[in-house]
């Protein structure tokens, strides 16, 4: 589905990604880990066609994604429909004056008739448990509620790949739990998920696979999530944890856990 071959990117001379090689298959759930500034967010922008590699190649569903190709409106719109991006800060994602219009924004553009649009919006509202907000203004919702609306409006496009930038940031513990189970649900319904996070607990629950970025903007590990989390030496090297970090021995899960099914 997604293929990065030797991709590099720099912001005005300051490197953010160096020689990244990564393959993500359809239906996988991958977590990108790494300290602040290691290049995770840049990679997510690149995956969504907001920026383009300085060197190397990015292929999505077999097609090379380049600045030139994305200038073709039909190609770029189709691409954006297939991959959805939930921004870290939901404030930057919402610009309509009520929740219903916000979610209907995508479906309406796709040329659906209004009854179909309504079905999609209602489904999304139900799925995210935000039916009561239908006529509220996104601007005045709380952080967690905004996040839900932002996810709903991306979901309404029915993308094949969903990209989340630090999805748990700024959410209260209960909403975090709800969110983790929601991601599991999405994954089980066949979506490809890519999330950046430094929340180690979340990684092992939602992602089958974890990719670790080090401070040199390269990938230092790419293995099953469970395995990576056990490799404390590697995590220390990437400065994600310090010597005080410990996992409770014996059982892998020592924290609260809700199974959605």
């Amino acid at each position, binding site marked *: 589905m997604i293929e990065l071959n030797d991709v590099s990117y720099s912001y005005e001379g300051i490197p953010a990604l160096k020689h990244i090689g990564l393959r993500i298959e359809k239906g996988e759930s991958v977590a990108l880990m790494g300290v602040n500034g290691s290049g995770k967010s840049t990679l997510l922008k690149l995956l969504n066609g907001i920026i383009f590699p*300085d*060197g190397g190649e990015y292929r999505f569903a077999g097609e090379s994604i380049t600045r030139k190709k994305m200038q073709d409106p039909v190609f770029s719109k189709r691409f954006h429909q297939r991959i959805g991006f939930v921004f870290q800060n939901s404030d930057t994602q919402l610009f309509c*004056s*009520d929740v219903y219009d916000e979610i209907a924004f995508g479906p309406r553009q796709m040329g659906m008739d209004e009854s179909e649009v309504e079905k999609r919006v209602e489904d999304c509202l139900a799925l995210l448990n935000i039916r009561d907000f239908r006529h509220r*203004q996104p*601007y*005045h919702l709380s952080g967690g509620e905004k996040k839900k609306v932002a996810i709903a409006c991306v979901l309404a496009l029915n993308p094949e790949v969903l990209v989340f930038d630090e999805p748990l940031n700024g959410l209260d513990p209960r909403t975090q739990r709800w969110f983790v189970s929601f991601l599991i649900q999405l994954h089980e319904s066949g979506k490809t998920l890519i999330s950046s996070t430094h929340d180690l607990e979340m990684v092992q629950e939602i992602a089958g696979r974890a990719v670790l970025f080090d401070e040199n903007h390269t990938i230092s590990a790419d293995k099953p999530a469970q395995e990576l989390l056990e490799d404390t030496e590697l995590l220390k090297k990437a400065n994600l944890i310090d010597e005080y970090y410990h996992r409770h021995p014996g059982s892998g899960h020592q924290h609260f856990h809700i199974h959605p099914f």
Partner: protein
Amino acid sequence: MHIPDNYLSPATCAALGAAVVPVWAVSVKKVKKEITRAKMPLLGIGASFSFLMMMFNVPLPGGTTGHAVGGTLLAILLGPFSACISVSVALLIQALFFGDGGILSFGANCFNMAFVLPFVGYFIYKFIKDRVRSEKGEYLGIVIGSYIGINAAALCAAIEFGIQPLLFRDAAGQALYSPYPLSVAIPAMLIPHLLVAGVVEAAFTAAIFAFIKKVSPGTIYEGAKEKSKAVYGLLAALILLTPLGLLATGTAWGEWGADEIGEVVSNGKALGFIPQGMQNGFSFEAMMPDYSVGGIPEVAGYILSAVAGVAVLLIVFKIVSSLKKNTHGVHE
């Protein structure tokens, strides 16, 4: 509508600058009284909002885009006095750091876009809104206010351009600054504003207002209820009279003889000397060289070209080597 330097004579710039100073003073005073200290940072943040608004590309029919100034919008949202200060600061940053609009013409640009635009726009909006007391009346006010506001500003700019060739010519009759007379400047500025920019401004203003009113109606500026009429009447008169006043003072300025010019107050400072070129009159032919005319000694000419030549070589060398480095970087 950002007037660059050298299109308006320094005298015009000074006159318009002098006209804006009292507006600023009144605005600062008003703002202090109206929005209390608690909202002082709002001025700066309002200015950044205004600056960014001018960065937004508004879609036009046919797939092209244009810009809105948003002066009337700010006046409706923050009040005309805050809008005046915010737009002025935004214009200053554009002039100082982005080369958008001149330094000397800063006063003129403020006059047009930070004074005339928001005040005319707001005055008309208020006038209509107070008479047609319904939601329709409010939007009618916004649309007409912002449309006329931006066109009034464009008209002022056109007049400023247009009086230049009337007032500032050399002995040979050549215009020294903007060469287009009123008959050219006014239609050239107004036609695009009447047909396109005004429509963009009005549509954009109404749409943003609608959004804010729906999402957060409490944030819109209420305005002083009492004695607003007198203030607006005064402002309207001022706006109408200023171009005339400008024309009058400008004439005086333009007609000064060379002996009087030593006492001219320009940009707040007495010039204190008589430019020699003015005494001798000016001839375009004399300016174009055989490289030793125009009042410059031959040696000085050589030095000048040597300095320029060395500088150009250095610049070319630096740019070429930096380009080389860049291409290397990409291929590595």
